[in-house]
């Protein structure tokens, strides 16, 4: 039962227009959760441009978008999951697994034992399907065994990582060994002196598609409802289990696309790819204003969050600061974002 007394007080405040400026900020941020990351990003861009003019050169800006593309794409999957009050610690491991499947199946060099020489489109499809399957395994364990997502994905993080190493023998597949279609996401389109990577376009399309899905379809509404209050959603006739499972499957699909983009972005497929990618996606989503408690957040926020992570790293590097300070800055941002979220959530009557 909600507390009727606090409800009455809220109403009184509302009718008498007795809102302090702080309260107004709180209500606005509550309504538009992507506002805070937008402000942070703009402030960061301005400050870094002032510190080092090189920062806003087209070359550096292209570099920033390329650095963002993988985190950004995986952040879409992570956002869907966090909106359901879940979390995916295995997302990076799934991506690495997916790209190793793709690369090994399409391997053109005849010298290798794992040479299947499948047509590249088929190798990519199977790689994406492998990622979907991995997502489905997460979903199955979470839904059927009612295990907490944190624990399940902590376990599958190890499982998928080990599986990659066992199946693919820790061998990095170099760019020249792979057919061009696998590396197409890394192709850059020149717009003046700005280089737009194909993968960046794909990422932006995915953001647009899933923003539509979240805002304009029943499934999207149900994701928010399930993350917000699963009991209420269930009593309202939503199958929370079906929604949860489907979210992990769709997240697997997006991660599969991310795997393809990753090959293009790095020009190689390594089983030891970037281990920080997991936490980077969660960081992006949290800085982007999505609540770790579920039910509140936007994809546009996560896109901004992904850019913030990269811009802060890049900007501080150009300002001549040590790697340690960049890590420190990101940590402070995450804590600030979560604290802000806690404060904003107090709007609830």
């Amino acid at each position, binding site marked *: 039962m*909600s507390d009727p007394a606090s*409800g009455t007080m809220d109403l009184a405040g*509302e009718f008498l227009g007795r809102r302090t400026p702080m309260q107004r900020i709180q209500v606005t941020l509550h309504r538009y959760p992507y506002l805070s990351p937008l402000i942070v990003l703009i402030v960061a861009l301005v400050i870094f441009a002032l510190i080092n003019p090189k920062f806003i050169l087209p070359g550096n800006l292209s570099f920033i978008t390329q650095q963002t593309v993988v985190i950004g794409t995986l952040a879409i999957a992570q956002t869907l999951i966090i909106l359901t009050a879940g979390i995916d610690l295995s997302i990076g491991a799934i991506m690495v697994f997916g790209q190793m499947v793709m690369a090994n199946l399409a391997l053109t060099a005849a010298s290798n034992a794992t040479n299947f020489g499948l047509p590249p489109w088929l190798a990519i499809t199977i790689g994406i399907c492998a990622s979907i399957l991995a997502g489905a395994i997460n979903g199955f364990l979470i839904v059927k065994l009612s295990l907490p997502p944190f624990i399940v994905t902590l376990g599958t993080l190890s499982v998928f990582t080990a599986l990659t190493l066992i199946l693919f023998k820790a061998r990095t597949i170099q760019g020249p060994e792979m057919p061009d279609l696998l590396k197409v996401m890394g192709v850059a389109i020149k717009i003046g002196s700005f280089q737009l990577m194909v993968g960046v376009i794909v990422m932006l399309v995915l953001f647009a598609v899933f923003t539509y899905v979240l805002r304009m379809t029943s499934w999207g509404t149900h994701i928010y409802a399930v993350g*917000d209050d699963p009991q209420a959603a269930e009593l309202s*006739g*939503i199958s929370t289990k079906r929604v949860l499972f489907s979210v992990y499957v769709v997240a697997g699909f997006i991660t599969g696309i991310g795997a393809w983009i990753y090959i293009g972005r790095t020009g190689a497929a390594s089983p030891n790819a970037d281990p920080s990618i997991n936490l980077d996606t969660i960081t992006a989503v949290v800085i982007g204003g999505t609540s770790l408690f579920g039910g*509140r957040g936007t994809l546009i926020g996560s896109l901004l969050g992904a850019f913030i992570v990269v811009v802060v790293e890049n900007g501080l590097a150009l300002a001549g600061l040590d790697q340690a300070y960049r890590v420190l800055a990101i940590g402070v941002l995450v804590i600030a974002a979560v604290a802000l979220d806690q404060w904003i959530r107090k709007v609830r*009557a």
Partner: protein
Amino acid sequence: MSTPTLALEPLLSCRGLVKSFGHVIGLNGADLDLYPGEVLAVVGDNGAGKSTLIKCVAGALIPDTGEITLNGERREFKRTQDARLQGIETVFQTLAVSPALDIASNLYLGRELRKPGVMGKVFRMLDKKRMRTEASQHLQDLGIGTVQSITQTVETLSGGQRQAVAVARAAVFGSKLIILDEPTAALGVRESARVLQLIKDLRDRGMPVILISHNMPQVFEVADRIHVQRLGRRAAVVTPQTHTMNDVVAIMTGAMSVDEKDQALGPVRSAN
């Protein structure tokens, strides 16, 4: 009209429902009968099993044993959606609204309207505009609760306003039976009166209602029959005409028992 015919077949009938939660027994062989067109009040002490009973009818809980029949047909609801598809709408004691969603989305949660044509069929696009206009129309028609905007999220509403949203959802979509579990608990005097009026309106339309309430005057005002629940079972069914509030309280606490022949186990209202 001159000869009121009593509908003898119950619309809804529960027999011997048992539901235990670990070693806590919520229902211990509970019965329930609801006749067409009547308002049945369910009263009882805290923990008597009222909510558990209606949750079984609403599909929110699956009874361990016992049977539920609707229109003479045996039903086994696995989920609330199963009961909803049979036209049973429920306002749960916990309200079951989604705080982060707006009022219109809450009203249509689980049965969203899609745009007509390709946009709806292929792109699954919601018809938000239609849901909003219809939702505010419904709220206005029902006259329960005033909200500033239909796009306000429910978390910004007061407890009473939330309750109004939940009641409106049931009233709009219920086609066979509406169950209200303490619908006026958080409401002000005026809003409570509106909900009572709503129950009477529903009854006049021939819509049966199960009302759980601790408010005896309200119960005696609207109920055709009063089902008294005690220790997980039906202790007695009486009417406001045959028994007083004190009698009902006495039955609730076990201080009084009513002989079967003095109870109102059959219908008391003519179904019209």
